[in-house]
């Protein structure tokens, strides 16, 4: 039998729901569980209603489900707004100063006062109470607080202990082993993937849901051996980064849709000037400002086609932290090897969700040598070669005059307008697309999961993978997730679809963007499940929606 538990933590913005959730996740982690945390918050700083759902399981889980076993309530909304998530089994642990309900209440104020602790530590009290109610040992609590509370673990522990002592154990979350996973967010996984790929500088202007990547990397510059710059706006972000890359740095930038708009002119420049760059774009609900803190998968075609003119680009949409880590490193390699822009397309659910990673199992990307100039032949920045890839040199290299150009240009980088050169250089650039597509044949660009016998497949991309994976397990379906979206791995996709009778595309947008991309590649789907309210499509929802389409 599957060993599983779900915990909802809710309160007002400013009460530290996110960190409370992270601690709860670590409590489960330290009890041997795979964990996942979904964090839901509106776009405001104080007040409102934030909540996190933490799920622990003895098998990997990367999405929350509807039912929760425990509710940790720091405000009344946590009780009133989540009625559909609770059942008879559900146990409430709550701050009785502000919440009226049944279950295990503690007076947070009293505890804080007796420990002379600030208000923000209130969540430690209820976490303590929750730990006791769920039978988690004090040793575990103490261990988790000590390891994972950056500041003030001592006093937080004291507060937690008072909460712990005030309630009774009701329903034990069994410890299922001593193995611990590494718990991290999707953005963190992208960040360390980039670091593994050789990142030297990250340039970004804050924009949810990419900001946490900026914050994470900025916090860890010394540890990772990188630098971070936050310039005046997104236009500057991409242009600065292109300056870095031209001068030999390994630059990545990050944003969300609105900021990406401002980068499209720079993207086209990267395409023409053949300057490598990594763009991390994390999607949120659009159009325009939309719902800044909620999710979507509605920028795929924009990313695939952004920038005037035609040039090869690499686009990868990881679905979980393993993929995020691995493919971010690969993207780095691809961008520099082929001198093309590479985009890591994420979504809020992936970026800000917290996942377990099995350190032993993560794949390390292999890096090819850069096509550096040999220093012997005269240097031409845009020398035409069989592969279309020109040897790289950076300014400051003795004997190389490195001229890059946004205009159509000849092999030395000087502006050219002659018909023959235009045709040749356009083909040169497009050759790289072919070579890149060929090289991708040796990567697992398509992720295939679920039942190998199944005739019905759920096709999805990005974080919806996690929902499909779980539903497929339940319904005995296959799951196909194209991870690389440009160049689209059409051969592998067709192979993956062999023997399939029914194709259902599942995505978080209103027009069916993956479905369109498939159609464009000659693959028609039989049904679409589209979900677009900003909330992640959960397995429970998908099960219902699949019934509607007769699965």
């Amino acid at each position: 039998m599957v060993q599983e538990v779900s915990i909802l933590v809710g309160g007002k913005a400013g009460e530290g729901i996110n960190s409370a959730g992270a601690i709860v996740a670590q409590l489960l982690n330290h009890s041997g569980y795979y964990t996942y945390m979904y964090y839901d918050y509106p776009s405001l700083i104080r007040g409102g209603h934030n909540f996190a759902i933490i799920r622990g399981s003895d098998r990997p889980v990367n999405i929350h489900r509807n039912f929760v076993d425990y509710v940790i309530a720091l405000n009344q909304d946590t009780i009133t707004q989540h009625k559909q998530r609770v059942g008879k089994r559900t146990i409430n642990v709550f701050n009785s100063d502000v919440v009226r309900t049944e279950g295990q209440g503690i007076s947070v104020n009293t505890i804080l006062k007796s420990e002379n602790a600030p208000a923000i530590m209130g969540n430690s009290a209820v976490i303590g109470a929750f730990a006791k109610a769920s039978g988690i040992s004090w040793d575990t609590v103490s261990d988790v607080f000590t390891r994972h509370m950056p500041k003030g673990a001592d006093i937080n522990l004291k507060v937690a202990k008072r909460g712990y002592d005030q309630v009774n154990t009701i329903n034990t979350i069994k410890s299922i082993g001593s193995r611990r996973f590494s718990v991290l967010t999707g953005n963190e996984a992208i960040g360390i993937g980039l670091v593994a790929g050789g990142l030297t500088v990250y340039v970004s202007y804050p924009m949810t849901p990419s900001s946490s990547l900026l914050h994470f990397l900025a916090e860890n510059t010394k540890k990772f051996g990188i630098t971070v710059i936050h310039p005046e706006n997104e236009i500057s972000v991409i242009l600065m980064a292109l300056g870095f890359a031209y001068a030999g740095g390994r630059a990545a930038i990050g944003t969300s849709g609105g900021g990406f708009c401002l980068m499209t002119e720079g993207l086209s420049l990267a395409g023409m000037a053949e300057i490598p760059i990594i763009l991390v774009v994390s999607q949120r609900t659009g159009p325009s400002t939309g719902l800044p803190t909620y999710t979507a998968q509605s920028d795929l075609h924009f990313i695939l086609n952004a920038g005037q003119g035609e040039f090869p680009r690499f686009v990868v949409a990881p679905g979980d932290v393993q993929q995020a880590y691995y493919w971010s490193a690969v993207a780095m390699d691809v961008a520099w090897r082929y001198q093309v822009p590479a985009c890591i397309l994420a979504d809020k659910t992936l970026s800000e969700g917290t996942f377990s990673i099995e350190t032993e199992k993560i794949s390390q990307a292999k890096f090819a040598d850069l096509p550096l100039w040999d220093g012997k032949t005269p240097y031409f920045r845009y020398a035409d070669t069989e592969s279309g890839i020109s040897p790289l040199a950076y300014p400051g290299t003795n004997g190389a005059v490195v001229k890059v150009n946004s205009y159509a240009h000849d092999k030395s980088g000087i502006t050219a307008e002659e018909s023959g050169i235009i045709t040749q250089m356009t083909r040169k650039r497009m050759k790289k697309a072919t070579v890149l597509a060929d090289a991708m044949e040796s990567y697992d660009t398509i992720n295939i999961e679920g039942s190998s016998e199944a005739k019905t497949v759920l096709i999805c991309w990005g974080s919806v993978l996690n929902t499909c994976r779980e539903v497929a397990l339940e319904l005995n379906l296959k799951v196909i997730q194209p991870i690389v979206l440009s160049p689209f791995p059409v051969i592998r996709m067709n192979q993956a679809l062999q023997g399939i009778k029914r194709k259902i595309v599942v995505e978080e947008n209103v027009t069916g963007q993956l479905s369109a991309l498939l159609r464009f590649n000659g693959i028609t789907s039989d049904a679409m499940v589209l979900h677009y309210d900003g909330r992640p499509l959960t397995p429970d929802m998908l099960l219902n929606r699949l019934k509607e389409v007769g699965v």
Partner: protein
Amino acid sequence: MNGRQLITDAQNTWCPGCGNFTIQHTLKTILSEMEKEGTNLDDVVILSGIGCHAKIADYLNINSFYAIHGRAIPVASGIKCANKNLKVICCVGDGDAYAEGLDHLIFAAKRNIDITVIVHNNRVYGLTTGQYTPTSPLGFKGKSTPLGTLEYPLNPLELMLASGATYIARGYTRKMDLLKTLIRGAINHKGFAFIDVLQICATFFNMTDYYNAQIYELPTYDRSNASIACEKVKEWDYNNKAPISLGLFYQRTAPTFDEQFQHQMSVKSERYPIVKEFLALRQ
């Protein structure tokens, strides 16, 4: 040792009489002097926006980044931060740097990043055939404003002073010696150096007579005195007839962004151990 051939084979397509020739020639002279003095010209990078001025990137046989309209300056900032040994020179237009990309200019000044910005200020959009720019005088009748503009020009020097630039000068393409001194000074200056060059556009806005009648060279004063600089800078507002002073208005030393940035920088080449270490912390 013979110096390098400083001019490429690219066909020069500026109009006869264009002030850009002067700027190019001045830069060429400076570069060959620098080479003689021991600078490796492979350590020099020139950047440009898009416009007539920008063609200089094609013409000078040194490292170049021929960028996009309005955006040379952020690229230059990236280059300088990536490799502080490079000498980074931006040749930008007035449409380029004062309209499309004004914010980048202001922020580069604010950061005191160690680059040189030369504005080819012909007070008109040259390459797009003659529209007003932010420094065109009030009432300018260009192709987009046949009834005359309704806006006073910006005074770029005043803006630069307000933005924290540490080297502020004005040159003129009919005063080549002075121009050379100013550009050379800018390249030597440690910090953000800005030169507004009154560049003659022979085709769309030929101000030669007007300038020749108004210009004079700045007298001696303490160049680090912001109040005097401010006064001098305001003497001519790019609109009304007034004496036009040429020369270095202001200079001071201050920490540069790129330099401080180096201090915050740390480089680690072995990446997997770092990642593993990080993952262990998250257990």
